């Protein structure tokens, strides 16, 4: 009986999800025709076996990124090869005991109020801040070789706010071992090395600007917080941060440097007009305009990456002397993401293996709840309900599409 109910409910969830997709296709405020198609593509890629990771990566990088937090919760784990049915447990009390970075983490998290949505009640924010401390310390504890840096909390909070505590731990763990790995050495020498890629890119594109910045001796520290927080520290609109996270999660670890380059290039006139002095240029560049054309800059960053890949820059700028773990492990990481099973299969496997997916806590509510339901579900009923939801969904889609041809008024009446 339980199983039947669970399967039925799960089918309902799928149905709701399809209705939701249709809704956001038609009622979005963004006048983007490609949006609907993109959501369909993402959905198709997610249910392919193996998961169509290339399509997901393309979706994350191209116009609009992953569009909604709902989609992010489904796609982000795939980009990092994370099985959402086998998430880490919530950290216990002991996670805070005797960690060398404990004080620094608490200090930084306590004063990170700006990262939380403006209207959020203080009590709710306080709960999330405590979770944030736990998430960070849990990942650091699992990886004793990793060192906390100020700014790491800006990355962690962006994940936490979208995917919840347990998935944030899983994602941060993977990111820390790959994309962010260089920043987490005992010293920041490797981070400096990554920053050193910035000037050679500028040199390739705009030699005059490059000369100006060299004369000013501005250095690259103005871009430090951009790089190590993936811009989370400097953007005031969370939606822009998320858009960039979509992009960076689907890209090479050096991509934030290419985006930094496009931002500097975008402000080329301003830079050249300013006084050729370290302080002045640093001041100008470190204050990032909040109205940047992000979509344009992202596509420019992708172009730059294609035209001047890291290997080329390394050759030209004698950057090879330093070994970057993020760069050297990226290929293997990419390969590992190619053989992921879709969530429906992962659920079945999880059940078959009897793997523990204890579901306490708040984070990633949807995925986890679904995990629990599936864990107990009756397969036959599940299949039947799946079929029903799919059929209904397709029917809805057809009706909605026809309605669209008649006009939005008819569509509104329909719902």
């Amino acid at each position, binding site marked *: 009986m339980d199983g039947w109910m669970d399967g039925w409910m799960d089918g309902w969830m799928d149905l709701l999800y399809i209705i939701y997709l249709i809704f956001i296709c038609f009622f979005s405020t963004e006048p983007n025709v490609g949006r609907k198609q993109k959501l369909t593509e993402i959905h198709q890629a997610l249910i392919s076996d193996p998961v169509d990771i290339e399509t997901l990566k393309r979706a994350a990088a191209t116009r609009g990124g992953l569009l909604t937090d709902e989609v992010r919760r489904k796609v982000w784990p795939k980009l990092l090869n994370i099985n959402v049915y086998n998430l880490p447990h919530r950290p216990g009390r002991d996670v805070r005991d005797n960690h060398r970075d404990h004080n*620094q983490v608490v*200090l*930084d998290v306590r*004063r*990170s*109020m*700006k990262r939380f949505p403006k209207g959020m009640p203080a009590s709710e924010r306080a709960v999330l801040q405590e979770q944030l401390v736990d998430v960070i310390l849990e990942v650091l504890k699992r990886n004793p070789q990793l*060192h906390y*840096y*100020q*700014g790491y*909390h800006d990355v962690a909070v962006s994940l936490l706010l979208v995917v919840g505590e347990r998935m944030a731990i899983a994602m941060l763990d993977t990111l820390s071992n790959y994309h962010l790995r260089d920043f987490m050495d*005992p*010293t*920041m*020498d490797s*981070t*400096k090395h990554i920053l050193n890629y910035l000037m050679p890119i500028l040199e390739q594109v705009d030699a005059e600007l490059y000369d100006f910045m060299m004369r000013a001796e501005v*250095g690259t*520290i*103005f871009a*430090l*917080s951009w790089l*190590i*927080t993936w811009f989370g*520290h400097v953007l005031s609109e969370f939606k822009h941060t998320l858009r960039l996270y979509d992009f960076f999660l689907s890209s090479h670890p050096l991509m934030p440097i290419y985006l930094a380059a496009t931002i500097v290039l975008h402000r080329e006139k301003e830079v050249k007009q300013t*006084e*050729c*002095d370290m*302080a002045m240029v*640093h*001041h100008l560049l*470190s204050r990032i305009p909040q109205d940047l054309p992000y979509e344009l800059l992202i596509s420019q960053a992708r172009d730059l990456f294609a035209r001047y890949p890291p290997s080329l820059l390394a050759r030209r700028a004698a950057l090879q002397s330093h070994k970057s773990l993020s760069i050297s492990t990226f290929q293997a990481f990419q390969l590992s993401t190619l053989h992921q099973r879709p969530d429906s299969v992962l659920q079945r496997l999880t059940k078959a293996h009897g793997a523990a997916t204890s579901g306490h806590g708040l984070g990633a509510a949807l995925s986890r709840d679904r995990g629990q339901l599936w864990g107990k579900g009756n397969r036959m009923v599940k299949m039947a309900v799946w079929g029903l939801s799919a059929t209904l969904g397709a029917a809805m889609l057809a009706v909605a599409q026809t309605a669209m041809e008649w006009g939005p008024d008819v569509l509104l009446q329909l719902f």
Partner: protein
Amino acid sequence: MADSGSSGEFSASLTSSTLPPPRTRIFKIIVIGDSGVGKTCLTYRFCAGKFPEKTEATIGVDFRERLVEIDGEKIKIQLWDTAGQERFRKSMVQHYYRNVHAVVFVYDITNAASFRNLPAWIEECRQHALGNEVPRILVGNKCDLQDSVQVGTEVAQQFADTHSMPLFETSAKNSNILKDGSSRGSSDHVEAIFMTVAHKLRSQKPLVLSQPSDRAGGTVNLSSCGDSRGEGARSWGCSSC
């Protein structure tokens, strides 16, 4: 003046780095100290004139500036606000130690560790060739939290004397109490501290030997948080002291 011997060397570095039109000189001051002692609040307070509502961890180096007028001369004060976490100071911040004219060391009077770490910061400066000849001051911040003082004025003064620095105890925050009425609350201290440094730097410039400035009288009010003007402060050579 106790340290007048250094003024020649100092002014030389000034003239060589000054790019803008002759009347606007630039004084570069670096602000260093442990994480969370209030470096950002102090520099923001001085440059924006108010206590920032929310400050976050500084990543790398932030820059703030303010144009002040001292005896009719316009002077640009540039403050370099640095990250407190050790990993940043080791390999990131050194670029910003170059051509610095003065150093402000900050500790938190409610945090003994931030005071104990001062020798490491002084050593850091020394390694960047910022020795005793460069004006340096010591600032104990968060004076408004009198209930949780961990670093007494006496011990801080002793430390400051040993290192030939003047000591100031202040609060970047505590000004709202005196919002209406008297304007001479500790809200003026932050202002006065940086202005004292500016006066000091200006007095080292040979062109302006002539008059000790009257405006520096404002600095007399600095030490309401405790008797912070000990030997170090007096020997430091602020023209009005």
